[in-house]
């Protein structure tokens, strides 16, 4: 409604900071079903305040994970940053400029891969490159496509259709597609959520390796504490919804490049893990309690 509430001085303040993304007082209300017809049929619902007054700054070249109980509004928040959904109030700035719509400066990896089933692996990536860089020569486009197929380890599967490859390979395509357009920020909504534990582990290592190479700003939603600790510089912990807020932001001090064993043997690992477990346990239990008392 009032997207531009931030005063000019506020904007100046933002441009001076070093953060790449900053959220100021971001709230999202999903309007309920209203009107006499819904009331008559008993289907009316009230407005739902999903996230309330979120403030968050994300610096350049950091990997940030968002973790929180199911249904708290993580996807809502990420979709707002992606521009796929608009905030009801508050402002979202990227490099000091308000975000209004989706754009190729933010690359998105979808939980359910969202590959086009009629395009081969190669064509899915090429579609992204062609869309974002229509001006560069086809030869150069092919080079970018090939490079990213190599980056995610899909050589040999270029001509296969999405329905002919495994879930892990599909998500590799999803990651390659997001990276191929060279976005400033990588957004990932539970990228490994639909994978088995083993494949998940492999892909986490892969993402860690790729991230070390590219060091792009990344925002990832996850339900896995280990995953967040392995990959992130900072972990944003959200409270339960409705009206979810940011509870706490953890700094993850592990040196990079990381691998599973060095991370797990780091002195701070257990303490961080315990803190996150407690947070998630507390919030999830409160959600259940609220559900039962209804």
């Amino acid at each position, binding site marked *: 409604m009032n997207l531009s509430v931030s005063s000019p001085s506020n904007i100046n303040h933002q441009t001076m900071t070093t953060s790449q993304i900053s959220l100021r007082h971001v709230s999202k209300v999903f309007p309920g079903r209203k009107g006499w017809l819904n009331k008559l049929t008993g289907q009316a619902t009230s407005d739902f305040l999903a996230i309330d007054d979120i403030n968050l700054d994300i610096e350049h070249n950091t990997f940030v994970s968002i973790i929180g109980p199911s249904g708290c509004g993580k996807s809502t928040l990420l979709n707002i940053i*992606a*521009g*796929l959904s608009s905030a009801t109030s508050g402002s979202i700035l990227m490099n000091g400029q308000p975000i209004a*719509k*989706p*754009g*190729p400066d*933010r*690359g*998105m990896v*979808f939980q*359910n*891969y*969202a*590959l*086009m*089933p*009629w395009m081969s692996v190669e064509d899915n990536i090429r*579609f*992204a490159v062609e*869309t*974002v860089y229509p001006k560069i020569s086809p030869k150069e486009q092919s080079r970018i496509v090939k490079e990213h197929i190599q980056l995610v380890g899909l050589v040999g599967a270029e001509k296969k*259709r*999405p*329905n*002919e490859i495994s879930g892990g390979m*599909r998500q590799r395509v999803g990651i390659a597609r997001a990276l191929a*357009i060279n976005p400033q920020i990588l957004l990932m909504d539970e990228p490994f959520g639909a994978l088995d534990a083993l494949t998940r582990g492999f892909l986490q290592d892969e993402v860690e390796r790729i991230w070390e190479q590219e060091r792009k700003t990344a925002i990832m939603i996850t339900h896995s504490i280990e995953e967040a600790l392995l990959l992130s510089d900072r972990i944003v912990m959200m409270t339960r919804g409705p009206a979810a807020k940011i509870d706490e932001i953890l700094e993850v001090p592990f040196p990079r490049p990381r691998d599973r064993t060095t991370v797990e043997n780091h002195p701070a690992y257990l303490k961080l893990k315990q803190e996150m477990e407690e947070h998630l346990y507390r919030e999830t239990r409160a959600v259940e309690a609220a559900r039962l008392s209804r």
Partner: protein
Amino acid sequence: MTIIKEKVAKNNQNNGLLENENVKALLLFLFSLGLFLAFWEIGANLKLFAKGMPTASLTLKELWWWTTNPFFNNGPNDLGIGWNLLISLRRVAIGYTIASIIAVPLGVLIGISKVASKAFNPYFQLLKPVSPLAWLPLGLYMFRDSEITGIFIIAIASIWPTLINTAFGVANVSPDYLDVAKTLGASRLRTIFKVIIPAALPNIISGLRISMGISWLVIVAAEMLLGTGLGYFIWNEWNNLYIPNIIVAIFIIGIVGIVLDQIFAYLEKLVSFGSKA
């Protein structure tokens, strides 16, 4: 390993010719066909059916004669069945193509816009269940030409399934694909041609398939009132009261219908790409 091999071998042994499902089905088919022809032959000879009902052997003989002499031309009332078939196919092809050229783009436009689909839906819902033959007098009055009227009837009959299916397919493209296009900043036009239409293609093709089926149903009926074509062939033989040729024509119409349908079944398979990804 060896156990599996033995099992496979055993299975193969059991899968003798008589065990195979397809062979069984074929045998049952041939058996029932034989039974049907025998019943027909005997029944017709004993005059069990209507008076003048031809025997199976006579009908088969006629079928053989018509299919081995498809192309002769002794004027419109004595035309080889091949010519009549081609005439019918030509009318269907023209009418169906016109309908499809209108229906697919219009369906895409309507499917994209929620307002348009709500606004125009009453027309389609109203016109879809109307028998195409109801348009015949109107067509004759407007065009004063039986050939154009025939094509008009085919077009008006085959436009609705394609239109409705296309609009449905376009309106129900998975939001995931649209989100991908949006996050890439794809233009509206690029989204339509590269994402929406390919995603809706299975629906479009099945709409085209239904439309083709309807065209082929309608052309026969329309031609009875128009002159030339397979429908007129049947009508003419009815006037001659020569029933075997009517049965021959029914058989040929059915076979051509199967062929047309199978072409679209093949196309459907081509664009389905297995399950969603």
